[in-house]
């Protein structure tokens, strides 16, 4: 199939990562919100992890495409 699944996965996690990271930054001072998660700004942490994973997937999908193009 001509669709590289790493591309949509990478894109989705990058977008979700950006949303959560921004949300985490904007709510840094909101202690009430993070009472549930033991005072940890979990949105920021998970958002950044997703961003890293998303970019990693995007990089992989690019890497695989180059040798194919050479052929």
């Amino acid at each position, binding site marked *: 199939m001509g*669709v590289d699944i790493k591309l949509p996965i990478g894109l989705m996690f990058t977008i979700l990562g950006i*949303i*959560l990271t921004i*949300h*985490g930054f904007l709510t840094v001072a909101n202690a009430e919100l*993070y009472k549930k*998660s033991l005072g*940890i700004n979990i949105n920021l942490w998970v958002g950044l992890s997703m961003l890293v*994973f998303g970019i990693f997937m995007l990089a992989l999908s690019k890497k695989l495409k180059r040798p194919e193009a050479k052929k």
Partner: protein
Amino acid sequence: MEHVISLGWIDLLIMAVYIVFVLGIGWLLKRYMLTATDFLEAGRSLPAWITGLAFISANLGALEVFGMAASGAKYGIKTVHFYWIGAIPAMIFLAIFMMPFYYGSKARSAPEYLKLRFDEKTRGLNAISFAVMTVFTSGISMFALAELMRILLGWDFNFSLILSALIVLIYTYLGGLTSAIYNEVLQFFLIVIGFLPLSIIGLINVGGWEGLKEALSEVAVERGFSAGAYTASWQGMGSAATNPMGIQWFGLIMGLGFVLSFGYWCTNFLVVQRAMAAGSMRAARRTPLIGAIPKMFLPLLVILPGMIALKLLNDPESGFALLQKDGSDDFNSVIPMMLGHYFPTGLLGLGLTALMASFMSGMAGNVTAFNTVWTYDIYQSYINPNRPDKHYLRVGQFATVFGVIISIGTAYLAAQFDNIMDFIQLVFAFVNAPLFATFLLGMFWKRSTGHGAFYGLLAGIIAATVHHGLTLTAGEAIGIKGGWIHVFHQYPSEMALSFWTAIWAFVVCFIFTIIVSFSTQRTKSDNELKGLVYSMTPKYKEEGEKWYQSNIALAILVGAMAIVLSILFW
């Protein structure tokens, strides 16, 4: 309408992004769906890492997630037996010993293998019961999700039901099996990232693994078990009375580890189909092995939250409670209630999206398995053979719509009659329990015949039914929990009863198949059995492969990892 959790707009935004991507994948794949093979078998072209993750993801439906977390809260770490004993060995067996016949026979489905190996009636029995089972299973999980959304978020039951069905329908209709598999990979990563923070925060909250062990040992002693009953996987398994699961080691290993687990992982077309979609024999055999690696760590995502919930439930200061059903704790609500307990807005949306993803991967798995079996094993075989390929492509697409509509119907049925669903799941258990004996004898004993397989299977199903009718779970009313013929024996737990039902079904099917095979003529010559039976098939060898690249090496590695994990949590 009163509800438990409130969502912010950011939670809804996350859900919306997910839905856009899921539908987008289906839309991207639409133009590649040219033949029935593309649509129903993913063109047999996918790499092993994709089919391997889909293999696990298709099994990781909402019922699995809810059920395993519920077991974690009820039985503690003993639930890992469903993974390390109840999945890994069977997945290795499927990869090394059975995949060569599934993939090499060029059968397009598990029932079709039975047709090639045995005869038409054995295939018919398997195909029809499987088709019915898939639509009911996806209906039940749809009901579970919509009901949860209603209680948790206050969403309208009909709205959640139709919305989720429609999303699954659109992406499986557009992109067929490929779309289901690609989305399963995406859903797998989402489930991991959405649930992992729950385990991490939960563990921090209860003072790490040591803290959890300490807290649960108090609970165990309070309930009359030894201190490690909830945190050491083999402690107290010597007798059914000394562990919370109510089963002893022999029943566990034979019932779960052998009959049920091999029956599920090695014969259920829902998972086997993922491996058959792989691009080569090597990739097909690699599929269950790659799936086995994340599978053995899934307890961290689904059982651990259950165990943490058990601790919180026994700590009056935690403020954590489960949903109530008929006046007692509804353990199926462990995961969603834990999400609500620990996750702030933002992550909460992600957690609930992961839950939706797990539900959709399970449902799409059922729908795509259904449309293949319907198109090839029922429609093309009995209703309308010898039509051009385009026709079967259309039938496959139509079956997708049809399957989703029946699933919606069964979801409403489940909403109406709670008991009917228990009853139907019980019937499926009877039908499936002996199946592994049939495949095992078919693949490894060339003398087994079509009559032997068919009547052996019937005998196994009857044995399961009769065993259930003659035994009862202690403390339960006669009926759906057994004993409806006469109560000869009482099992200490429902799990023990279902394990032993499966053991009996398997043994009876095995013996009957052998007896009937010996008393009937062989219908397939040695030559016809080439590629279908072990002794008639040339040994498969991959060209130019170093020993450490082989599937055998990977299988040994996977097995060793499972053993190490078992020892660590002994």
